[in-house]
């Protein structure tokens, strides 16, 4: 084990320790437990997007749709069908993943800006459905008047409804499983193939790799994890509305990934934390939060395109 590997291990350990103890120190420094849960949820969404964006090199601007599908699936099951959190999440995840799998073949052949445009356009389909079909989705008002349900393991019950801390640790557990799965996939031969496609698609094609199929698979995996994040998002505030799957939400995921650093596994987590803490602070001080977000986007693109971790890595190397 050389030095950089050791550093990586230390950084990983530090991140997990911080996440595990967050409910205790967050309150001490003036935050609140819910903010921690929100950071984890958005971080999962941005990491899922980064699976496609940073590791496959494909630009998607429509991930909010699958995030929202997960959320709506969860909310609708608990509200109308069956009051069980795990069942509802399962339905949400399946809904988001199936939609992505169906749309995938249409866009897997496209590249660059064309891919981005088509993902935006297809993403808006679900926004319109959620917005228009108000008898089922609640339209513009969204779905409220339902509650996440305590999780019964048989031998014990985790009361995520009444305890913020319990909900945080539930989110953290789901986050850990998903992050572990993504890290495992990226380290597998499949993940290495995705990297090869990102680095040089033509050469990958010459090696006989079915590039379009790999992009489709990476797209579906990415959307699967983003819909998990969407389920948790709906559970967080017992509420979901069409804004969860609008294009500006997709933009938020992308900016979080870029802000933290697209080429690093933990980058999106750091990006999400910075973005949400700033949002929390600024939106409590001014009504013109949108202008600040916009300015934030512009400044990051112009002065900070490598993101926090990209910058640190670069300093480290020189």
């Amino acid at each position, binding site marked *: 084990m050389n030095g950089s590997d050791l550093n990586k291990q230390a950084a990983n350990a530090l991140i997990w320790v911080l996440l595990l103890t967050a409910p205790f120190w967050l309150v001490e420094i003036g935050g609140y437990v819910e903010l921690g849960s929100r950071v984890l949820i958005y971080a999962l969404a941005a990491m899922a997007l980064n699976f496609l*964006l940073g590791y496959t090199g494909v*630009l998607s*601007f429509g991930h909010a749709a699958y995030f929202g599908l997960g959320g709506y699936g969860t909310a609708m099951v608990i509200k109308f069908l069956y009051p069980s959190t795990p069942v509802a999440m399962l339905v949400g995840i399946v809904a988001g993943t199936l939609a992505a799998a169906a749309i995938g073949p*249409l*866009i897997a*052949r*496209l*590249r*660059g*800006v*064309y891919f*981005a*445009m*088509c993902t*935006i*356009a*297809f993403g*808006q*389909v679900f926004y*319109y459905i959620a917005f*228009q079909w108000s008898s089922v989705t609640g339209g513009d008002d969204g779905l409220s008047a339902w509650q996440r349900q305590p999780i019964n393991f048989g031998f014990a019950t985790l009361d995520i409804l009444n305890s913020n801390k319990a909900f945080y640790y539930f989110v953290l557990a789901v986050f850990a499983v998903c992050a572990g799965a993504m890290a495992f996939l990226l380290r597998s031969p499949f993940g290495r193939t995705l990297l090869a496609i990102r680095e040089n698609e033509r050469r990958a094609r010459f090696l006989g790799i079915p590039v379009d199929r790999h992009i489709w698979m990476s797209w579906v995996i990415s959307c699967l994890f983003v819909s998990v994040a969407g389920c948790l998002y709906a559970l967080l505030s017992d509420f979901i509305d069409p804004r969860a799957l609008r294009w*500006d939400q997709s*933009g938020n995921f*992308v*900016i979080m990934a*870029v802000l933290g650093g697209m080429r690093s596994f933990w980058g999106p987590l750091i990006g999400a934390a910075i973005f949400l803490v700033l949002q929390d602070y600024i939106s409590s001080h001014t009504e*013109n939060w*949108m*202008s600040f*977000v*916009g*300015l*934030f*986007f*512009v400044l*990051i*693109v*112009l002065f900070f*395109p490598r993101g926090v971790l990209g910058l640190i890595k670069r300093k480290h190397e020189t």
Partner: protein
Amino acid sequence: MTTLIIFNLVNGLIIGAFYALMALGLSLILNLSGVINFAHGGFLAIGGYLAYTLGPYLGFWGALLVSPFLVAFIGVAIERVLIRRLYGRDPLYSLLLTFGLAFMIEDGTRFIWGAQSLPYQIPSSLSAPLSTSFFFLTGYRVFMLVLVAAVVIGLFFILNRTRLGLRIRAGTLDLETVSVLGVNTRVLRNLNFGLGIYLAGLAGVLAAGMLGLQPTIGDSLIMPSFISIIVGGLGSLPGTLAGGILIGAASGLTTVFFPSASEAVIYVIMAVVLIFRPRGLFGEEGRF
């Protein structure tokens, strides 16, 4: 029934004309600079609001003439200061930048002109219906169609018959060679961006007369404009024009038979085109 069909078809054509006007501007910028201008809807809103402010001083016609040029000027300035820096980088960054601009413009118009929707006066000579049997055919709608047609013809004249147009078309195919041949591509892209934004500003003034003004006026037009480009084919301006009119007419006709699907039908058209012809109806093979 026939009247109903004609009514909705005309409606669809008018909406299609808007889509086409927006999409042509987007397409010009995308083709030459590789930038998806997400702030296009914002520029459209600025066009409408500037005309609203200028109207009392210049009258309807003066505002219609001046406002799009002012918007184009703003666009040129923004390209110079911000967007130019991102040429040649991953398209991700220009997309994020225009995303941010779209937020700032929407919030800015809300800050200056207020969040409530404002009425936009059109001259009474244009607002009267032309005939009693076709009551929906007001002078303003016919005027809009004629004006859009004239502008589109003018645009294609510029592209096909002037030196600037020749350079824009050449640059779309191979910007490097155009640059090597001694054309200042920085200025070319700058002017081209202004031209695209001019079309957005004009669409904004016209839309204001039909829909009234609100900060999110561009939101409902930007997505169909994207789809116009995808359906028509990336890289082809005639394709974009055809795409805009096609989806406008299709959503108009769908309104007759199945009103709630009028929005959905354009996405269906996009999906069908992507299945059978991924490069779009008029797109060139292998460009994207």
